[in-house]
């Protein structure tokens, strides 16, 4: 692993620390102030249900864009040009599914989790289905949470070089503890506040830096492209597809598989789904999702400019020498454009970003555990609200600690790989169930169970037997070789498999009574405000 010299000097590290601490202190205080005072599950799970569409949209944007987007994908653009831009494009397109198909029917039928929606469709078999859903949710959120915490270590590496075991542990424990406080004490109101703060910071920070890049090139896009191609070490190949994923048909399919998982997986991410349930009126939800889409698209466009700018200004060799995966691109660019202050601002932004996403994930996992697993499966719907909220707070702490332990064990893992696996599981286990539940009359509980468990097992198994785990120098076990599945991203196989299993399970089982679906459909379309 080549991790070269640290990105920046002591001054920007100190500035970053001061900025980060002040943001954390302010948001923690606000989280405590806005924390749910009465133990009401609605307030703890959904927060303020009458927020304006802009604020909701900012929170959605905050939930969706992780530090991986800010550092990882700009780095990808800086190192691979066109392929990186394609990846950013997919990040924005994913919102179309949410807006056009999922958001409104889900809100009209949902309460706190997807389990509540499914329970309306399969009332008699709701417990096993909720159990399977909770397992899938837990798998997705834990993977993504570990990715965020590992990302914090990777980010620290940018400043201090390879951190010692103590620094590493300290970093993960501090971030993890703050996350637990946000989620367990603040509940959804606290998580929403930090999400909004982070989104505002992210959008303004990224936009301002992009404007600075464009200003440096006199607002001439062609000059930017020319400079990027010249400094990329590969000439015009930089602006053509295939630099990263064009080596063979396998890697092209791999890229397609990744895009499929991203475009389809977003709608099924548990923390994004929770956000969709919050607005009280359908109209507010629709406007919020449009806001979210617009803001995400803006950030993606700006990130593309940042990536190209990093190559044009700093040069590909410097970026690749500092960090093999390119995660340092934005910080190097910031250092060149705005000195220590801008570097500190952007790295503080990255820390806040991963903090906020981790808080949203912890809360989503805690909700699923407390509401689906404890409230409905264990207590069979007889738990009081106070009990359920207490369990949710406890679950948030447990999941946070679990995430910290896993992150400390696997701190060298590639954050992008973990995040992509989470997307693939969401797209192949939860999305089929979600789509069938909302739109397919014949869907049954057996279909739901089969597609949830099958999709989860299929995507995990394919990754285990892929080059991610064995056979290449960058995998977890480089010396072993049991990688018979050639692609790193399982989506292209596991997503169709999830849909197929859901269909098969439904067709083979006895249909539910037709009135249930009729009732459900009226609810999805007409809604109840």
């Amino acid at each position, binding site marked *: 692993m080549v991790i070269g010299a640290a990105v920046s000097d002591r001054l920007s590290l100190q500035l970053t620390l001061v900025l980060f601490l002040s943001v954390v202190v302010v948001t923690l205080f606000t989280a405590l102030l806005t924390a749910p005072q009465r133990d009401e599950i*609605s307030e703890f799970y959904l927060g303020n249900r*009458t927020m*304006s*569409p*802009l*604020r909701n949209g900012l929170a959605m944007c905050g939930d969706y864009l992780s530090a991986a987007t800010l550092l990882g994908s700009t780095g990808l653009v800086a190192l691979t040009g*066109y392929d990186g*831009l*394609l990846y950013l*494009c*997919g990040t924005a*397109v994913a919102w*179309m*599914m949410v*807006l*056009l*198909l999922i958001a409104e029917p889900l809100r009209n039928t949902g309460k706190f989790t997807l389990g509540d929606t499914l329970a*309306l469709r399969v*009332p008699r078999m*709701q417990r096993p289905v909720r159990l399977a859903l909770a397992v899938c949710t837990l798998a997705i959120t834990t993977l993504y949470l570990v990715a965020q915490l590992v990302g914090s270590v990777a980010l620290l590496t940018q400043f201090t070089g390879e951190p010692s075991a103590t620094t590493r542990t300290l970093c993960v424990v501090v971030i993890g503890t703050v996350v637990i406080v946000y989620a367990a004490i603040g509940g959804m109101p606290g998580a929403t506040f930090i999400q909004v703060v982070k989104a505002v910071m992210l959008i303004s920070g990224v936009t301002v830096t992009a404007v600075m890049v464009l200003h440096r090139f006199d607002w001439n*896009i*062609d000059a930017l*492209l*020319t400079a990027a191609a010249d400094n990329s070490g590969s000439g015009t190949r930089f*602006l*053509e*597809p*295939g630099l990263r994923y*064009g080596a063979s048909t396998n890697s*092209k399919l791999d*890229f*397609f598989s990744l*895009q*499929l998982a991203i*475009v*389809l997986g977003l709608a099924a991410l548990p923390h994004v789904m929770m956000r969709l349930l919050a607005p009280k*009126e359908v*109209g507010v939800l*629709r*406007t919020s999702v*449009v806001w979210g*889409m617009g803001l995400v*698209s803006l950030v993606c*466009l700006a990130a593309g400019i940042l990536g190209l700018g990093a190559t044009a200004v700093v040069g590909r060799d410097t970026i690749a020498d500092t960090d093999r995966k390119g995660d340092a691109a934005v910080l190097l660019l910031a250092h060149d454009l705005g000195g220590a202050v801008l570097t500190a601002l952007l790295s503080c932004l990255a820390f806040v970003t991963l903090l906020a996403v981790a808080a949203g994930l912890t809360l989503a996992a805690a909700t699923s555990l407390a509401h689906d697993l404890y409230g409905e499966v264990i207590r069979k*719907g*007889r*738990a009081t*609200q106070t009990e359920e909220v207490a369990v949710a707070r406890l679950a948030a702490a447990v999941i946070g600690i679990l995430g910290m332990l896993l992150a400390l064990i696997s701190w060298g893992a590639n954050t992008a790989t973990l995040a992509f696996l989470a997307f693939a599981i969401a797209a192949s286990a939860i999305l089929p169930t979600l789509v069938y539940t909302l*739109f397919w009359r014949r869907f049954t509980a057996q279909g739901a169970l089969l597609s949830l468990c099958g999709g989860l097992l299929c995507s995990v198994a394919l990754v285990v037997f892929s080059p991610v785990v064995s056979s290449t120098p960058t995998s977890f076990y480089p010396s072993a070789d049991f990688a018979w599945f050639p692609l790193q991203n399982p989506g292209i196989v596991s997503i169709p498999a999830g849909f197929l299993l859901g269909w098969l399970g439904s067709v083979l089982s006895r249909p539910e009574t037709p*009135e249930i679906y*009729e*009732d459900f*459909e*009226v*609810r999805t*379309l*007409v*809604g*109840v*405000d």
Partner: protein
Amino acid sequence: MSRHSTRFGSPPPYSPTPPEQAERQQVSRDPAYQSLRRIRRRFGVRATAVAVGGFLLYVLLSSFVPGLMNQPLIGHLTVGLALGLGQFVLMAVIVWRYLVHIRTHVTPLVRGLRGLARQHEAAGRGRAVPGPAMAPRDGEYRSW
């Protein structure tokens, strides 16, 4: 036990057919409801197919037909890069069409059906039929 309150108008999962369910089934036989169902599903499926399918097609074209995507347009701007920007334009157009579609075709039908459901509800409970409640108007939310 009261945690499954009908805050969302939802019946608790285990109760026998509550009055609201019967009303919903009456709504589902209304011709306006049938046409609402048809237009929503048709628009949703078509728009998603264009947006998501268009993007996946673009990814496949970039991977497997690089020759076409590398045609230069102006300076360093190739067909591929222009199509990438085009995805954002396409998304904006679809969102705009979607909002127009909802405003002109869906919202009036939904309003009518909600009024109908309320009338059924009121009639079912033997009360006087109230006038259709004011539907929430878009654009009138509490500002920041």
